[in-house]
C-alpha cells in the first residue's frame, strides 16, 4: 500500500490549515490528505502541534484559516456539518476520558442511544459485542475507576467504535499507561488497523508506527516536515530535525 495511491478515496482533506494560540503559531499552513483505510502515524517532538492538528480535525480546536473537509463535508461554524462530521470521526484520548459516573456498558452505549437514536437494548447488545472484541465483556457492569489504565483505554476504543466511525483519531493512546499495559492497547489497535477503518495515530511508539502504519508524518514547529512510508522514514530521514528526533528516540527518553 502506498501512501498517495490515487485509486483510494480521500476521507480527510486539510488545506493550508493555520492555527494560533494567542501570539503562538501552532499550525502553519498544514496540508495533508488522508485516504480511506489508511493508517497514518504522526510523530514529532513535544509541542510541535501534533495534538492540535488532530483536534482541529473534529473541531475540538477551531482552525483560523484554511479548510478541512471530512468525507466531503466542510468543517466550519455550521453546526449541522459539525454534527455530521463528529458522527463519522471517533477520538481516543491520552487520558481515556471515560465518563466516570457511568458503568462501562453505559459508557459505550450512551452515544449510539443519544446520537444514533438506537434503542437501549440494541445499543447495549452492540456495546457488549464491542467490549467482547476488546476483551472486556466481563467488566461491563464496573465503573471506570475500577479498571486498570490499559483496560480503560480499551473501553475508550470500544466507545469510539460504537458510533461506527469512518475515521478514528488517537492522541498518544498509550502515553499515560504503565509499560506493562501498553501492549494490550497496541494489540487492539493493530487488530483494528486490519479492518479497513481509517486511523490517524499520534504516537511515541516507534515500533508500532513502523510495523502497523501505512504512512508516517513527521511534525515539527507546526508544519509537516516529512510525509513518507515508515520504512523510508526510519531508514532514510531527509531533514536534520527528523534525524535528531530519531537519534533521541533510539536512545530512549
Amino acid at each position, binding site marked *: 500500500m502506498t501512501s498517495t495511491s490515487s485509486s483510494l478515496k480521500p476521507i480527510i482533506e486539510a488545506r493550508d490549515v493555520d492555527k494560533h494560540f494567542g501570539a503562538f503559531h501552532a499550525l502553519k499552513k498544514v496540508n495533508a490528505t488522508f485516504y480511506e483505510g489508511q493508517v497514518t502515524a504522526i510523530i514529532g517532538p513535544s509541542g510541535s502541534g501534533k495534538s492540535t492538528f488532530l483536534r482541529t480535525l*473534529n473541531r*475540538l480546536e477551531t482552525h483560523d484559516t484554511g479548510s478541512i473537509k471530512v468525507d466531503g463535508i466542510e468543517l466550519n461554524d455550521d453546526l449541522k456539518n459539525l*454534527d455530521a462530521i*463528529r*458522527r463519522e*470521526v*471517533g*477520538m481516543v*484520548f491520552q*487520558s481515556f*476520558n*471515560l*465518563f*466516570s*459516573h*457511568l458503568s462501562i456498558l453505559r459508557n459505550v452505549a*450512551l*452515544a449510539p442511544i*443519544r*446520537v444514533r437514536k438506537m434503542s437501549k437494548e440494541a445499543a447495549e447488545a452492540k456495546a457488549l459485542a464491542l467490549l467482547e472484541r476488546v476483551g472486556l465483556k466481563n467488566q461491563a457492569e464496573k*465503573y*471506570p*475507576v*475500577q479498571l486498570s489504565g490499559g483496560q480503560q483505554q480499551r473501553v*475508550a476504543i470500544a*466507545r*469510539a467504535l460504537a*458510533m461506527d466511525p469512518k475515521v478514528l483519531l488517537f492522541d498518544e493512546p498509550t502515553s499515560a499507561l504503565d509499560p506493562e499495559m501498553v501492549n494490550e492497547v497496541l494489540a487492539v489497535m493493530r487488530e483494528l488497523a486490519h479492518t479497513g477503518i481509517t486511523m490517524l495515530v499520534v504516537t511515541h511508539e516507534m515500533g508500532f508506527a513502523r510495523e502497523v502504519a501505512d504512512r508516517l508524518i513527521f511534525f515539527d514547529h507546526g508544519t509537516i516536515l516529512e510525509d513518507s512510508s515508515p520504512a523510508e522514514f526510519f531508514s532514510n530521514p531527509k531533514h536534520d530535525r527528523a534525524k535528531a528526533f530519531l537519534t533521541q528516540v533510539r536512545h530512549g527518553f
Partner: protein
Amino acid sequence: MNWTKQHPGLAMFAAMIGLLLFLWGMAVPLSWAPDPIGQAAQQFAEGTRMTVLLTLISGSAGVVLGVLAGLGKLSSVPPLRWISEFYVWLIRGTPLLLQILFVWLAVPTLLPDSMQISDFACAAIALALNIGAYNAECVRAGILAVPHGQVEAARALGLSPFQTFVDITLPQSMRVALPALANNLASLVKDSSLAYAISVVELTMVGYRVQAESYQPIPVFVTIAVIYLILTTAFTSLTAALESQLDVGRKR
C-alpha cells in the same frame, strides 16, 4: 458515621422514615411529659410539621433557583451573568431577617389587593430566595469541578451541547454540589425559625407562646432544642448517605 457510609440507601430510607414517624407520632410521647410540655404536645407537633413543611418547600424552590443562578453565573451571555451575580451579591450581603421582613411588608404593597399572599408564603419565598443564592455557589463550583476531558469526550462522540450538559456535566457536577446543597438544606431547618418574626406558627413561635403562657422557659426551650436536633440530625444523615451514594465511580 460509618454505618451510613456502608449502607447509604438504607440510611437514606431510615432517615426519611424516622423523620415521618417522628412528625406523625410526636404528639403521643410528648403528651406523657409533665406540664408545661404535656399539655402543649399538640402545639409542638403542629409547629414541627410547619417547620418541616417550610424547609421542604423553600428548600426545593431554592434548589431550582440555585441551579438557574449557578448556570447564569457561568453563562456566556453577559446580561444573564450580571443578573445572577447581582442576585447572589444582594442576598448574601444582607441579613435573612431583613429579607423576610421585606417580602412580608414590601411585597404586598407591590401586589394588587386581590393577590395578597399568606404569611407562610412570604416566609417560604424569602427563605427560598435566600437559600437559592447560597445554592448557586454550590452548583457553580460543582460544574467547574467537572474535568474538561469529560465534555470533550462527549462532544467528540457527537453529543450536542445540551445532551452533554444533561448526560455528563450535570450528573458529575452533583457529586460535588449535592452534599453542599444538602448541607444548606440542613441549615434551612434552623433558619426557618426566623419566620416567627412574621407570625408564622412554626416550632420556635410555638415555644415562645408556650413559655409565655406557662412562665417556664427552661423546659420549653429545651424541648424545642431537642426537636430541632432530631430534625437536623435526620437531615444530616440524609446528607451523609447521599454523599456516599454519589461516591460511585469515584473511589474504589
